[in-house]
């Protein structure tokens, strides 16, 4: 069967059980038309060459067992606004008041009643912009059908981080959440996202950062081995604005994290980083990044590190597009994997596309085993082989964790990683 037909059939099957939620009617209908025009992705699509989207597009979510551990909640020692969703359903009792100085927080599902002008304008807009030059149909699906999410409007320096806590309680849950962040000129906010959310999670985040605004994003995707997730973060950043996003992924059968950034103002800075540790041949992790420089003197960094063992698969597709006129762009991209055995695999597609002549862009991708000389050096000083391997593994990941501005957040993530290593199978 032709791919087009496969795709339209799959899309029809997926849409069969879905109805558009109330509110944001125009935006949702537009998103649905975008989806129908392209169809859901298929593994024969170039953009999905390394990651089979079947389990993300099929009509029903595959089952995912719950994962229990005795670790406390992430970032627990950090004063933050907790907003809890259990299988995508807002849990008011477990959540804090949706309030902090410098920021207003509303739930997406309340937008129908409250006329939140900026949200109506932003919802689906950056997602739609992000559909070219590459289609991202799963994001359009989300814009059409997302059941909830939060709207964060930073009008000043937010007094504390906002933590979306995604709990997973039902082995068959299929969840779509869509959140918006608007950072006004000179304002600043930190968004934390933690937890697996569902058996299958489709998340979209649209982030609009005005001149001199700053947005920090730190995410930890939860330890559930069997969960599947596709996430999109669309960002538009204006002059002298800062955008920083870091994601830690530990476990998960399938994760595709897309980050699409448009640098529209001069002197903007965007850093996207990720650390992933995968264990087992049912671990597949994909980072797909697309950064567009469309202004002067922009700085972008992509730092992605993956530790893979026991047949785990890691994918990186990263692109820097420098448009004509985006002079003095400084674009850096590094993707590296540490393969702890020969069964594991790293597939990378780094790309630069440059239409300006006065830019400094570099990219590198490496894949390698642990450094035996360093391992022996540590052992010769009395460090047991396993502990030495762990130390070198953390050292390998360090460059990505350094992208997190807040030390307390970074330390918490480091501890999780140490825990992961201690609990090896």
């Amino acid at each position, binding site marked *: 069967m032709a791919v087009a037909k496969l795709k339209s059939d799959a899309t029809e099957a997926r849409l069969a059980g879905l109805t558009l939620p109330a509110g944001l009617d125009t935006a949702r209908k537009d998103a649905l038309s975008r989806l129908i025009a392209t169809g859901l992705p298929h593994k024969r699509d170039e953009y999905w060459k390394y990651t089979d989207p079947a389990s993300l597009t099929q009509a029903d979510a595959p089952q995912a067992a719950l994962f229990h551990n005795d670790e406390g909640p992430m970032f627990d020692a950090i004063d933050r606004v907790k907003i809890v969703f259990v299988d995508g359903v807002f849990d008011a009792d477990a959540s804090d008041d949706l309030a902090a100085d410098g920021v207003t927080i509303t739930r997406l599902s309340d937008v129908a009643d409250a006329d939140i002008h900026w949200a109506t304008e932003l919802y689906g807009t950056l997602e739609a912009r992000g559909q070219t030059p590459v289609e991202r149909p799963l994001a359009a699906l989300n814009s059409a059908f997302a059941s909830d999410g939060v709207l964060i409007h930073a009008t000043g320096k937010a007094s504390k981080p906002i933590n979306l806590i995604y709990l997973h309680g039902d082995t068959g849950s299929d969840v779509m959440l869509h959140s918006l962040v608007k950072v006004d000129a000179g304002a600043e906010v930190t968004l934390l996202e933690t937890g697996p959310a569902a058996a299958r999670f489709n998340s979209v985040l649209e982030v609009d950062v005005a001149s001199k605004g700053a947005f920090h994003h730190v995410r930890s995707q939860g330890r559930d081995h069997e969960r599947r997730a596709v996430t999109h973060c669309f960002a538009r950043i204006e002059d002298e604005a800062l955008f920083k996003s870091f994601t830690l992924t530990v476990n998960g059968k399938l994760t595709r994290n897309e980050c699409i950034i448009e640098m529209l103002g001069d002197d903007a800075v965007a850093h996207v980083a990720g650390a992933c540790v995968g264990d087992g041949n049912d671990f597949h992790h994909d980072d797909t990044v697309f950064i567009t420089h469309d202004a002067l003197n922009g700085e972008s960094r992509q730092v992605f590190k993956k530790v893979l063992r026991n047949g785990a698969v890691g994918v990186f597709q990263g692109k820097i597009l420098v448009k004509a006129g985006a002079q003095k762009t400084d674009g850096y991209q590094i993707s590296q994997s540490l393969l702890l055995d020969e069964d594991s695999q790293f597939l990378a597609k780094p790309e630069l596309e440059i239409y300006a002549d006065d830019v400094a862009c570099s990219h590198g991708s490496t894949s390698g085993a642990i450094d035996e000389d360093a391992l022996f050096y540590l052992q*010769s*000083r*009395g460090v047991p082989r396993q502990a*030495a391997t762990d130390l*070198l593994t953390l050292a390998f990941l360090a460059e990505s964790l350094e992208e997190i501005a807040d030390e307390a957040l970074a330390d918490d993530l480091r501890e999780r990683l140490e825990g992961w290593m201690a609990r090896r199978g």
Partner: protein
Amino acid sequence: MLEIKGLMADLQDEDKTILKGVDLNIGAGEVHAIMGPNGSGKSTLSYILSGKDGYEVTGGSAALDGDDLLDMEPEERAAAGLFLAFQYPVEIPGVGNMTFLRTAVNAQRKARGEDELSAGDFLKIVRAKAKDLQIDADMLKRPVNVGFSGGEKKRNEILQMAMLEPKMCILDETDSGLDVDAMKLVAEGVNALRSAGRSFLVITHYQRLLDHIKPDVVHIMADGRIIKTGGPELALEVENNGYADLLAEVV
């Protein structure tokens, strides 16, 4: 302390014999030197004693205070008191020198059933020892050996030795790449550690290090064997006449 008998070893990948029967006996508190031409197997001997992969021991034995070294993992040998100052110290990006030192010290303490040093105690000790070796705070913070000069790397090796307080120290060409002042520092560091219970095996090309670290016994190694053993005067003989005469004697 260290007893090596008829030690023979091949390179694993190349089916090449490097050690062809090494005999060496180092008593407690003694300082022995091994000299010898390039490629005679000195570094190989030190690697095999400390347990590096890639070699196959085909005969003989090596024991530390009666315990079979060749049977142990490298970290067990370290915990048993063996230390090798590498000819080419390894760079470890991403691991701070201080973290490295603390991890090593505590791993050995743990292996010996001792309590870990508290962060405060550890810091105090490191700072004092680093000062003696003119290792500044910056060097302690930087990733292990990354961007260190040749001399800094060698001083860093001695710092590790001072922190770990091994009983059998092997120094593989610790003098190479050092200027005179740096060599004096290193030698002072070594001499400060000399004690009745601690032995040294100093591998060197040159007599000059032995002016500072006075050996009790000097061995000449060539083509995978110890071909001659004598007192400190043997080092002078090499210095004056080179190896040619000594090599000719054996053939």
